[in-house]
Structures are given as structure tokens and as C-alpha cells.
């Protein structure tokens, strides 16, 4: 390869786990957990309580290790099926490409448990036969035209953070599969301060976009939990949602203009009017199309001035029911802060286990006092209480006013303000929790998360039933130790909420843990749907949840989507087989 400029991302990132190679959890020689590297607030810190929580919750033991294969065995990667005519013409237009095993294997998966589990065991399934790196919109047009001409299958690749099996190569695909990596299309092309919009290439990664905009005093405010690694194009094609959507909106609210290259040509609108009544919004064919119609190349996004003031906060509730009632009231009064999240008791305990070693006796004394106040004085049952984390943004005065309003509502539901620290730690955990799964997998514990959206009146029912279903299924499927089954409400809307579930279990004694995990996850999704939850709030459908599309959007709905696909891409060039 002859690319220079941006560092190859896969050189700083793990090939068989989450995130940066230098950042990982491990149990040191003293048996204490620590987080390596320098990138995060938690980096370099000791987490004294994690070991006990880990062993206690999962029945795991530091003596029982299940380490990953350290290096990618390139001989395990199938030899590429190349379409020589395509390769020749690609060379002639000067777009860089590679058919190295590492490059291909890196782009053949997302971050579903089964994908990572297989990689850790050194198993590589069908991966793309080559990778191309277009540098701009025009390059993409040329590549797509060539792919059509030579009947090559294209799979767009952005940040690789999919959790819906969307990046898996269909095993039945016999054509040469080309991974179209958008990472080189990462520039902000212009910023329009009059209209507060920015025109950005779709390959840009979330954290780079925010950093670059910040330099000009702006932000998009779109902060999905994966923003360190996920790309703008990926957000558009999965209908992503950001943590601060209450202020900035979800991706569909943020985009003003989208340019996408399809086998039929380029689709885009002729102007940047803020709203149009011109038949069904063509953006909505693109948003959530999951790479089945074309490649998103450029996006015009709304931007906002960087907020002058940010403040974290947290509230402790006596139980989850009260917490949900409070969130519902906040949504009713339409006064949700930039972010408001409610963790259940299991996650609250988990959060505690991740407290770093306290530096002074004073802090530990204070912690003790707080605990005494809440459990003894206020009579909260430690096995039932739960915590909401808050993030306020805006000008200082308004933030403080807003904060008071929210805490007043919380008080009506028995909530007690629990400080900024707890709030901030809650949000930090969002970014490190994915790293924790890799730690679990070193010790026979596998974990996954999944999400849904659900009307307000069903939030508690969904939470209770799905958690219980996970426990029940694990037991029925022969899991020896009781699983961790936990949830949190992560977004509020006028008519409902987004709920996120985590489950993890110790798989010692199971002959096929991934199969068991897949059965449990399947059952959990059935339970969600039976209780009136949606198939997905923001992860998308991919191939993992395809089987439920028909019942989700109706026969006619599937037919509509299919007819769009048939017109736009009759030869199935964008053949990742997601969604339909």
C-alpha cells in the first residue's frame, strides 16, 4: 500500500476486540483490575472493587482464563477471489486498494459478540476479497461504475462499529466482494456560519468531526456512544442516535443534505431548504438503508456554537419504578436535559465496582457519609435503589435554572441529588464499557447489549420481562451461573423511551457458548416485540434482526423497500444483504 497521510487505523486498534490497542482492562499480578493506556480518564487507574464484583456476579475466577489468540493467523484467511478486469481498471483510475489478509479480515466484521468471539479463537469466515480507499466523491462514482460494469459486490465500510452483523459478508455471495472503506474521505469541505451548516465528507469519524468543528467554535452535538470510532456515513445509513439528542436531535434531524452514489447514479436534493413538501422525503430512503442502496459520500449537517457551560449531575431514586416515573414526568414537561439516563440497580452496583482507588481518606470518608445518608437516614434499600445521570448544556444561568427544575421534579418521585461526580462517571463508563467485555472474555464471561424503543406505559413491563426472560433462558439453556441481566433507560421522547439492555454470563461448562448466547438474545428480542418494544431504536437491523422485519413494518412495507432496492440496485451490487 502506498497511502500516506492519516495513520492506518487498524494499526492503533485491536483486531479482535474493542477500541485502541493500548487501552484495555486487565487484572494485574496483585489481582487488582486496572485500565491501561493514557487515553481515558480511567486510564492508568486501579479499580479495587472490580475483582470482587466480577467474581461475585458471575461466579468467575481469576484462575480460569480463556485468553484470545494473540495474533491474526493470515493463513486462516481465505485467498481472495479477485475480479481481474475490475482490478485492472481500478489500477488505471489510481484508487488505492489492497488484498492483504490483515486489511480484509479487519473489515469483515463488526462488534457483535459472535464476531469477536470467533476472532479471539482465530476463526475467520468469509471476508472481503479486497479493500479500496476512495479519496473523494468522484472516486466513489468511478468505483461504483466499475463495480456495475464488472459485476462486483460492494460493501461500504465506515467505522466498523456495527452491532447488527451488517458488515458480515454473505457466505452465499460468489462474486468478488470489495470493501469500500470511506476513511480517506474525512474532510470538512466548508462551514456556512450564516446558516449554521457544515458540509462534510461522510468518512469522517465522530471524534474528529467534533474536534475539527470545535476549532472553529462549533459542534454538531451528535454523540453516539461509539463516536470515537463510528463515521458520519455510518450514522446516516443506520439512523443513529446521539446521547444529547434532546438538544441537537437525532441524525435524521441533523442532516440538511445528503449525497449518495448508487448504481443508478447520484441521488441528492437540489437545494438546502430546511423543510420541503415534495412527496416522501428521499432522505428517508437513504437514512437506515444500511449500505444496501449505495455509498453516502457527503453530508451537510447542522452545527451549533460550542456550549458555554456544561454540568453533570445525578439523582438517586429508591427504586427503578420511581425513576421511570420521574423520567416520564420530565419528558411530559419537555424539560429533559441534554442527556438523562436511568440505570437499574444492577448497573448501579456495576458502576460502583468501577470506582477508582480513592486518593484521600477524606473522599472515602465522604463516600461513607453519603452512603449512610441514603441507606440509613433516607431508608433506601441498597438492593433496589437506582440512579439517573444527567448532563446539562447551554449558558450558565439557564443551565442552573434548568438543573433546579429537573431536581425539583426528581424530588417529587423520591429522588435525591447525588452529585456531579457520579453523573460524570456514568458517562465516562459509556465509553469504557465496551472495553470491559474484552476483559470478561478473558475469563469465560461473554456479554452483549441490545436496545429498543417503547411507549411510556410499557417501559417498566419491557424492562422487567426482558430481564427476567434473559435469566430464564440462560437457566433453561444450561448456563451454570446466574447471568447479569440489566437495563437502563437512555433516551426520553414525548411518547416513549429508549431502553438499553446488558446481559452477561459465565459460560464455563457450555460446549457451544455462542450458540447459547444467540438463543438467549433471540428470545430476548422476541420478548421485547411481544411487549410492544421496537425491533431497534438505533443499532439497525443488519442481518441479525432481519427475520423480524416483515412483522415489524408489514408485508406492504417490506414490498415498498424491496421495490426501491430493485430500482436503485437491480444487480445487487451493494450486496451486503442487510435489512431485507
Amino acid at each position, binding site marked *: 500500500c502506498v497511502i500516506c497521510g492519516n495513520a492506518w487505523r487498524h494499526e492503533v486498534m485491536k483486531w479482535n476486540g474493542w477500541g485502541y490497542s493500548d487501552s484495555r482492562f486487565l487484572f494485574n499480578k496483585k489481582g487488582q483490575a486496572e485500565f491501561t493506556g493514557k487515553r481515558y480518564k480511567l486510564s492508568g487507574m486501579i479499580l479495587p472493587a472490580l475483582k470482587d464484583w466480577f467474581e461475585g456476579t458471575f461466579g468467575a475466577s481469576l484462575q480460569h482464563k480463556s485468553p484470545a489468540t494473540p495474533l491474526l493467523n493470515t493463513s486462516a484467511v481465505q485467498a481472495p477471489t479477485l475480479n481481474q478486469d475490475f482490478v485492472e481498471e481500478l489500477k488505471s483510475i489510481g484508487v488505492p486498494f489492497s488484498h492483504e489478509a490483515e486489511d480484509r479480515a479487519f473489515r469483515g466484521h463488526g462488534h457483535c459478540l459472535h464476531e469477536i468471539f470467533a476472532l479471539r479463537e482465530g476463526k475467520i469466515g468469509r471476508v472481503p476479497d479486497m479493500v479500496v480507499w476512495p479519496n473523494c466523491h468522484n472516486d466513489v462514482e468511478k468505483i461504483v461504475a466499475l463495480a456495475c460494469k464488472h459485476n462486483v459486490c460492494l460493501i461500504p465500510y465506515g467505522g466498523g462499529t456495527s452491532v447488527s452483523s451488517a458488515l458480515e459478508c454473505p457466505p452465499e455471495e460468489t462474486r468478488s466482494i470489495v470493501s469500500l472503506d470511506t476513511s480517506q474521505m474525512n474532510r470538512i469541505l466548508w462551514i456556512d456560519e450564516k446558516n449554521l451548516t457544515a458540509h462534510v465528507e461522510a468518512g469522517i469519524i465522530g471524534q474528529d468531526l467534533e474536534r475539527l468543528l470545535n476549532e472553529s467554535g462549533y459542534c454538531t452535538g451528535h454523540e453516539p456512544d461509539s463516536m470515537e470510532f463510528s463515521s458520519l456515513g455510518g450514522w446516516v445509513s443506520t439512523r443513529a442516535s446521539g446521547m444529547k439528542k434532546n438538544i441537537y436531535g437525532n441524525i435524521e434531524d441533523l442532516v440538511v443534505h445528503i449525497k449518495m452514489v448508487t448504481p443508478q447514479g447520484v441521488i441528492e436534493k437540489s437545494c438546502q431548504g430546511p423543510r420541503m413538501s415534495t412527496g416522501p422525503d428521499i432522505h428517508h430512503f437513504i437514512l437506515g438503508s444500511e449500505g444496501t442502496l449505495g455509498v453516502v459520500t457527503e453530508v451537510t449537517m447542522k452545527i451549533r456554537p460550542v456550549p458555554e457551560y456544561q454540568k453533570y449531575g445525578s439523582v438517586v431514586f429508591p427504586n427503578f419504578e420511581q425513576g421511570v416515573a420521574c423520567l416520564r414526568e420530565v419528558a411530559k414537561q419537555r424539560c429533559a436535559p441534554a442527556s438523562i439516563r436511568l440505570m437499574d440497580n444492577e448497573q448501579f452496583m456495576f458502576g460502583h465496582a468501577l470506582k477508582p482507588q480513592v486518593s484521600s481518606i477524606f473522599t472515602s470518608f465522604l463516600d461513607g457519609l453519603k452512603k449512610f445518608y441514603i441507606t440509613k437516614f433516607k431508608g433506601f434499600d441498597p438492593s433496589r435503589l437506582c440512579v439517573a445521570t444527567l448532563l446539562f448544556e447551554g449558558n450558565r444561568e439557564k443551565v442552573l435554572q434548568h438543573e433546579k427544575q429537573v431536581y425539583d421534579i426528581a424530588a417529587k418521585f423520591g429522588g435525591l441529588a447525588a452529585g456531579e461526580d457520579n453523573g460524570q462517571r456514568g458517562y465516562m463508563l459509556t465509553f469504557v464499557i465496551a472495553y470491559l467485555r474484552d476483559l470478561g472474555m478473558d475469563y469465560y464471561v461473554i456479554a452483549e447489549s441490545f436496545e429498543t424503543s417503547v411507549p411510556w406505559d*410499557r417501559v417498566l*413491563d419491557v424492562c422487567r420481562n426482558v430481564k427476567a426472560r434473559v435469566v430464564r433462558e440462560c437457566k433453561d439453556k444450561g448456563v451454570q451461573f446466574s447471568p447479569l441481566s440489566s437495563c437502563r433507560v437512555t433516551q426520553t421522547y414525548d411518547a416513549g423511551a429508549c431502553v438499553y439492555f446488558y446481559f452477561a454470563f459465565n459460560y464455563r461448562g457450555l460446549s457451544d457458548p455462542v450458540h447459547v448466547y444467540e438463543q438467549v438474545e433471540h428470545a430476548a428480542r422476541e420478548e421485547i416485540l411481544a411487549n*410492544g418494544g421496537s425491533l431497534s431504536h438505533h443499532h439497525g437491523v443488519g442481518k441479525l434482526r432481519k427475520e423480524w422485519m416483515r412483522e415489524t413494518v408489514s408485508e406492504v412495507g417490506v414490498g415498498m423497500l424491496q421495490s426501491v432496492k430493485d430500482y436503485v440496485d437491480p444487480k445487487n451490487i451493494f450486496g451486503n444483504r442487510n435489512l431485507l
Partner: protein
Amino acid sequence: MASEAVCSHRDPMLKKRDDFEDILEERRNSSDLRYALKCYTPVLYKQLTPCTASDLKNMVLCSTQVHFVIAQVSKETGAAPEEVQAEASSILEEMAHRLQLGPIRFFAFVLCKVFKTLFRSVCVNEEGIQRLQQSIHEHPVVLLPSHRSYMDFLLMSYILYTYDLALPVIAAGMDFMGMKILGEMLRMSGAFFIRRSFGGDKLYWAVFSEYVRTMLKTGFAPVEFFLEGTRSRTSKSLTPKLGLLNIVMEPFLKGEVFDVALVPVSISYERILEESLYARELLGVPKPKESTSGLFKARKVLSENYGSIHVYFGQPVSVRSLAEGRVQRGQFNLIPRHIPRRPSEDVQGFVNDSAYQLLRAQEENMVLKPWVLLSSLLLQNHHQNQNQNQRRGGGMMMEELSEGAVWLRELCRQYGAFLHWPDHVPPAEVVSSSLDLHRGLVTISDGRVHLNLGHGAQKGAGLTAEEELLSQAVIILSCASYRNQALHVFVRPALLATALQAAGSAHKQDVFNTFNFLRNMFANEFILCPGAAVQDFEEACFLLMKTGVVLMEQEEVLVTENGHRTITFLTSILDPFLQGYQVVCRFLCEASTESLTEAQFVPAVRTFIVRLLLSGRLRYSEVLSSDLQKNALAALQRLGAVHKLKREAEPATLKVNTVMVNSLEDTLGGKLPTVKPVASRL
């Protein structure tokens, strides 16, 4: 808590059942007062929302469900919402229980004394109690006892108290409220009262169903009700009433709880307190209105021995497992759940099937005493030798009866009956001690066992023939009620045996057709799971083959040489019903000219039957049972042979399709071949 638990096993012999403990034994050896005052700390539902009986009422009145209906009713009737609200509140007042520990302790004390006088033992399967305790901790629980006696729900609460389990709230008929003091006492021990009929009263339904659901969802207490709706006067299980079952399943179907555990409980009485009361009632002597003073008059029962009671707590059945693959729970996603809706067809079908499965689970764990076998034999003997009775001195020789009982015992066991026959005692002793307990029904003289039919002149003097017939029928019906306890064991093989005789061909498909016809005809009479004709047929074939009664040879079902005794026994079991239904058919054909109202049906058919019996054209006086007559009518209505015509302000009349009823009668009598059923082939 698997749903398989309610399905019958392939081989009934392999059924595993728990052992019993006698809970009276300890009571006979230690202080009842201390027992009544013991420390009572039951295991509770793990997600219990702690609340008092009056909190419950508030929750119900403030619920969106009740509010919605109040608004609806107020809109429809024009009454002010406050008025409707007040009405809702008074409905709840009338209905609600006031469960308190004090009265329970009082009952516990009194019942100890009563039980010890009346019963030899009260036996409970303790493993069942442990399973129940586990269920109460895990899920909201619904207790579904069989209903044979007033005793049932007092007994249930007594047992739960004894084992330190959460006391149930019990759905009771309003008729109890007539007993002033007792009614209130029952209320305080957990009974809540529902009107027997409230047809279209939306508000009543809303308050009532929300009340039950709230108790269930909060885990306040196990909810107890009788699937059969009322006490079975015949000791046969009654076909299920679905209203309450619908209500308790709804919280699961709508996702409001993770699961609900249904626990069938089988209560078997060796001797039923209401024995002759029931017989009289079935014969048309109206049942006395419940009143406290009436109950005290019943005190003379206290001086008699009623043998033992067996209470078997069955496997808890998970509604979730039952519904798996049967009900699309997503059907509630698009309409707010508090808006009352008629259950969809699949839910109705599901609840109905579940009810039958639960009843069968109840039946399977009913304990049969030797007397059940003896009464079957004595009745059959009586009917076979009715005409020669006088000549031969009537009754059965003791040895003959013992031999028959031992033979029947083996048959029962082969069929998987839960028989309590003390094997270590010589059969003759078992027989005579059983007979002794039922002295009111049988006497032994000169080594012969007679039913107490009062032959001869002693009692019969001055009685008309009809009066004598009725007084004999009381004895016959009482005996029949004990025989009926074993019906669930024999009904499927008996239907097959009858079909073999009636089919006129040994071809399997023909036999099945006749079997299916009979099964359909008797669907109101016996507990036959809807849609399980093929299963039932195969079960019956399996049992008859296993016991060497029939052979399967190339699509033919053949009775073996040794099988005749069993076949005769089985067909005789069913014969009274077969004849009874024919008689009802004949009556309807003859009466069809007049406009017969529904209310006139039972008295009229009774007169008709008395005539047949007196003229000797009908052998079975148990056909006089109004239960049988009503079941037959219901079956004919279900089959479309009789229609109920409703005119405003006039009592409903019965419109009889004479041709159809006639042909049903002939088919039952074996004069016509069964019509091939369209849908069900083997």
C-alpha cells in the same frame, strides 16, 4: 413449572405422584390454641408491593381501567362522573375482602376441632406445598382447587395457614353474603364476593376484573377460585367457566407480569358432607338458601364419620409456557391496554384449552378410595339384575364384590388412576371397612351387600310409587356420585368400548368416527379437551391394547377373547348417560309441538322420565339427575339441534329441530350409522 405437566403421560402407569402427610395427626397431639396463635411468617412474592386491603381498593378506583369505564358509562347514561364513581366505589365495598390474621386464627382454632371430629385424616402432599411456596416467591399465583363441598375453601386456607404459606384471597359467590355473621367472617379470612350474574354491567365487570388483577399483579396474595364455577353435585368435574381464568391470564398476556403460576389442587373426600343434599337437589328438591342458622342445623353431621380427605397440590403450570406459540402477545401493542376489549379468538381458544388442561390435571390427581370402585360395581350389578332382584334376594355376595373390586383395582391402576387401596390389608377387610363408612347407602345382610333402596314394606308404606321411586333415586344418585369420581379414568376407554359395539364395523376409521361422534355428544358431560379427539382415541386404543382387551390388526380394532369383561364394564359405565341422552332427545321430539320455555324444561323432562321409569321402559333412575338433563340440552344446543328463541319481555323458549334430534337419538341408540365427520380424520 412446565406445561408438559398438564399433558397426560403416554403410559399412565408411569405417573409419579407425591406422598401424603396427615396434618391432623400433629393436631391430635398438641394444643390447638397454641397452633392457632403460632407465629405466622409466610414466604411472599419477591416483587411484592406491600399494601393493605384498603390500599388495594384505592388502587382499583384510581386505575386507568376503571377510570376509562367510568367516563364511558357516564357518557352513555348521562349520569355525572361522580355518581358513577360512587357506584364503582360501592360495588367495590360490596365485593372486597378484608383479609386479617385474627379471624384466620379463630377459624384455624375452630376448624381444628371440627376437622378432628369429622375426619379421620386430612392428607396433604408436602412436596406440592414446597413447590407452591417456591411459586409464590417467584410469580403471582392462582390456586385452582376442585369444588365438591362448601368445605373446600375453608380447608384450603386452613392448610395454607398450617404450612405457613401466604393466605389466598378467594372468589366466592354472593349467596354467602346472605349469612350475615359468617359472611363477614369469611370476608375477613380472605373471601371476596362476586355477583352470580352481571351480564352487561360494564362498570361491575371493570371494577371486579381490575380488583382481581390488582391483587394478582401486586402479589398481594395468591388468588383462589373454582374453575368449575360452582360445587359439582355429581362429583364429576364440571366444564370450566372461563371468566376468572381470562382475568388472571390477562396480566401475563398484556406483559404486565413476567408470568403467572396456575396451581391445580385436587381435593378428594372419602365421604362428601353434602352427599344426600346433592342427590335431592339433582332430583328437584331446591337447595336450601345459605344461612348461618341453616349451617348450625347441619350440626348433626358433626356426629358422623366422614373418613379422610386428600388434598393434592399439583405441578404449578406457567401461563407463559402454556401461551408459548399459542398466543400472539403483540396483538395488544396497538391499542392502550386499559381499554377493555373482548378477547380475540385466539385468546378465547387458548383460555378455553388451558381451562380443560387444568381440569384434567385436577382430575388426574384426585385420590380414589376403594368405595369408588365398590359403588361402581354395586350400581352395575343393581341395574343388570334389577328385574330378578326380588327373586334372588338382590345385592351382591361379599365374595363376589371383593373379587370384582380386586379386578377393578388392577384395571384402575393400569389406566393410571390415583387409587388409595391399602395393599397390606386383605381385600375383604378393605371392602368391609369401606362399606362400613357408607352405611347410609349400603347394608350387609346374610353375606349379601344391598343398596339401601328400602325394598319391602318397612319404609315404603303409604308412599306413592313416584315417591318411592324418588327416595330410591336419592340412594342411586348418591352412589353414582362416588362412581363418578372414577369416570375421568374410564371415560376415554369407555367411549372406545361403546364405539366398538356401535360402529358396526371393526375398521379403525369407522370406530373412530363413532368414537368422535360420542365424544362430541358428551362434551358437556365429561372433561374432554377440545380438539383432542385423535389424541383421546389413541390414548383409549393404547390403554385397551396394553390391557389385552383389543388387538390392532391391519386397520381393524378387534376385541380379544379375554377382553369381554372389561368391555362390558366400560360400556356399562357409559350406558346410563347414553340412555339418558336418548331419553332427553325423545322427550324433546315429543314435546316439540308445545312451546317449551327453558325454565319448564327440567320439570317437564323429569315427569317424562318418571313415567318411563315407572313403566319399566327405562332402567336408570340416575337419568332423573337434572345435571344430566341440562348437559344433554346444552349438547343439543351446541350441535344446533335445539335453538333458544329469545323474545323481549318473554321467557326464552326452546325451538327443537325434530329431524335432527331424532337422528341424534337413533345414532346414540346405534340404529343409525355415524355420519362421517368432515374435519377429523385419523
